[in-house]
C-alpha cells in the first residue's frame, strides 16, 4: 500500500523543476522522505511471476553492438531474418501476456532491455524533431523571384527573410542563389568577432570543434 502511494507521489511531481532557488519547506516527516519514499517497486525483469526458482538475466543497458546487423539491413536471403522474426514473435506474445510496470514505461531506461529486440508497441519514443514531409511547392517563377530579390538587396533580403516569405528552408535559398560578396562580408565580420576572443574562450571553442569531429569517429 505504501509503495503505491509513494509511486503516485513520484508520478505527480512537476516535470520541469523551477529555476527558482529551492526553499526549504517541511511538510513530510524525515523518515518518510528518506525511507518510505525511496522504496520503489522492483524492476519487472527482476520480479518473476512464478514461485519456482528462475534464472534472472539482466545485464546493464548498453548501446547495441554494431556488429549485430539490424533486421532491416539484412539481405533478403539471409538466415538471420527468420531467427529475428521468431524472436520478435516470441517477444510479442510475452509482452502481451505480461503487464508493463509503470517504471518500465516507454521513455524510461528500463523500457528497452538491451538483450531483447524492442517490444512491439504502438508508441515509439518521441522524435527529437517533428518529422516533416518534403513539399516541392516552389515554381520556377518563384525561384526566379527569390534569386532577383536576393541579388537586388542581399542585406535586406537575407536568407532567413526569404525562407519565411516563401516557406522553404534557408538551405534551399542558399542553394539556388549565392552572393559571394555578402558571404565574404559576413565571414569577415565573424572573423573580427573571433579575434576579440580571449584565450579561454578560444580554447573552449577549438576543443568543442575537436570533440565534434570525434562524434563520427568513435561512436
Amino acid at each position: 500500500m505504501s509503495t503505491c502511494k509513494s509511486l503516485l507521489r513520484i508520478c505527480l511531481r512537476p516535470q520541469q523543476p523551477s529555476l527558482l532557488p529551492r526553499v526549504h519547506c517541511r511538510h513530510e516527516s524525515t523518515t518518510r522522505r528518506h525511507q518510505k519514499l525511496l522504496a520503489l517497486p522492483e524492476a519487472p525483469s527482476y520480479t518473476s511471476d512464478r514461485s519456482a526458482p528462475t534464472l534472472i538475466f539482466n545485464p546493464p543497458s548498453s548501446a547495441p553492438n554494431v556488429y549485430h546487423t539490424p533486421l532491416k539491413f539484412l539481405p533478403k536471403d539471409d538466415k538471420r531474418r527468420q531467427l529475428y522474426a521468431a524472436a520478435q514473435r516470441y517477444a510479442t506474445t510475452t509482452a502481451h501476456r505480461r503487464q508493463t510496470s509503470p517504471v518500465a514505461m516507454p521513455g524510461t531506461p528500463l523500457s528497452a532491455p538491451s538483450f531483447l529486440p524492442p517490444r512491439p508497441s504502438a508508441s515509439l519514443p518521441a522524435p527529437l524533431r517533428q518529422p516533416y514531409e518534403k513539399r516541392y511547392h516552389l515554381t520556377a517563377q518563384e525561384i526566379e523571384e527569390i534569386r532577383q530579390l536576393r541579388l537586388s538587396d542581399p542585406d535586406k533580403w537575407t536568407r532567413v527573410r526569404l525562407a519565411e516569405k516563401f516557406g522553404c528552408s534557408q538551405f534551399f535559398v542558399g542553394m539556388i542563389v549565392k552572393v559571394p560578396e555578402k558571404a565574404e562580408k559576413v565571414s569577415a565580420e565573424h572573423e573580427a568577432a573571433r579575434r576579440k576572443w580571449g584565450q579561454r574562450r578560444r580554447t573552449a571553442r577549438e576543443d568543442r570543434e575537436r570533440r565534434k569531429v570525434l562524434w563520427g569517429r568513435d561512436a
Partner: protein
Amino acid sequence: MKRIPVSRCASQLLAQPLPRRPSCPYATAKTTRRSITPHNHRIQARFQSTAAIQHDGELEVELPEAAGIASTPSSRSASRGPRAAYLKPLPLEQLPSPHPSAAERSTKLHALRSRLSLPPRFPLQALARTLVHPSADPNPAFNNASLSILGRHLLGYYTSEWLLCNYPRLPMPVVFAAVEAYIGPKALATVAGEWGIEAAAEPGGEVDSGLLQFKRLKSGDELPAALRRQAPWKWNVTTTHKIMTTDEFGSSNAPPSPHALQKTPVPMEEAAQSFVRALIGALHVHLGSPLVKRFFRDHFLSRHLDISTLFDFRTPTRDLSRLCAREGFEGPVARLVSETGRLSRHPVFVVGVYSGKDKLGEGAGSSLDEARTRAAAAALKAWYLYKPVEVTVPSSMEGELDTSKWRPNLIDCGEVIV
C-alpha cells in the same frame, strides 16, 4: 653448396687474418675448428669489411671442416676457371651473410622452425635465407628480396579476399586501412617480434644464421634516400586507381622495391617486415599453398582487429538518409530513447535512429545533437559491418576437384556517396 660472395669481400683478401686474442684456451681450440660463431659484437665489428672489389669471381670460401662440405667442389667455383686455385680460401668473416651450410648448425633456426610449428621438411637453409635482408647481402641469390616480393603478394591476396568476403559492404578506404592493420609494415614487424626474431648487431658470415641480418640505420641518422623518396603513383589518384594499380594498402606513394635497398642502412622495421613476407614466400615455394593458408589463418587472421574503429564519418546523418533513400527504407527519424539530467551540467541523452518501426542504431551523448550524430554513425556502421553467415573465400577452391562446397559471395553495390 659452396658460395661465392659478390663484391662484398674485402681488399684485405690476401692479408693475414686479423689477430684475435682468445679469451680462454678452450676458445682457441674451438676457433681452429671454426664451428662457433663469435657472439661478441665487438669482435664482429672488427671483422667488418666494407671495401668492395671489382674482380669477385675468383674467390674461395674457407669452410668449416666439421660440416664436411669444403671437400666437395662447387660447380660454381669450378666453372669460374683455374684462377681460383692460387687464391687463399676466404674466411667466414668476409662473407656478407652466413653461409647456407651454417643453417643446419644453428640452434636458433631449429628453435624458430619448431616455434612456428613448421614441418621438418621445410629446409633450414630456406629459413636462414629469409632472414637476410638485401641491405646485408646484395646478391639476390642469397638475400630474401625475391621471396619477400612473392610473400607480399600472397599476404595481400589472402588478406583482401578474406576482408572482402567477410565484410562485403566495407567502403574501400576502410578495406585499405584494415589490410594495413593486418599486414602493414608495423604489423609485420610486431609479428616478427612476437616470433622472437632477434637482429644481429652487424651482418656478416660469422654471425649465427638465426639472427636477422641487415645493415642497421644508426640512431640519429636520416632515412636513406630510397626509403625517403615520396614518388606519387600519379597526380590524380582516384579510388579506382588505388584499387587497380597501387599496392594493397592503397598508399599514395610507391614503396621502394626490395632490390633497391642493397647496401643502404635500413631501420629494423623494414628488415623485420621483409623477413615475414619472405617467410610466407618460402613457405609457398617449399610447402605449397594449403599450408600457407593455414599459417596465414593461424598467425595473421587470429590477430584481433576491431574494424568498427576504422570508420570516420564527417556527415553521418546525411549519409544515413541517403542510404535509406537508396535502399528504399523509410527516412531515418531520431527518437529520444531516454535521458537524464537535462538541466544539469552533465546530461546524458540516449537517441535511437528509427526507420519506420525498426531501430537502426543507438547513440549516447551529452547533447541531443551529439547523441543523434552518434546514433546515425552507429547505424551506418551496422550497415557497413554486415557479415554473411557462411563464407567461402575464392582461394579455398584452389585446386579442388569438388566445387560443390562453393557458395557465391555477396557483392554489394558499394558505399554511400553523398
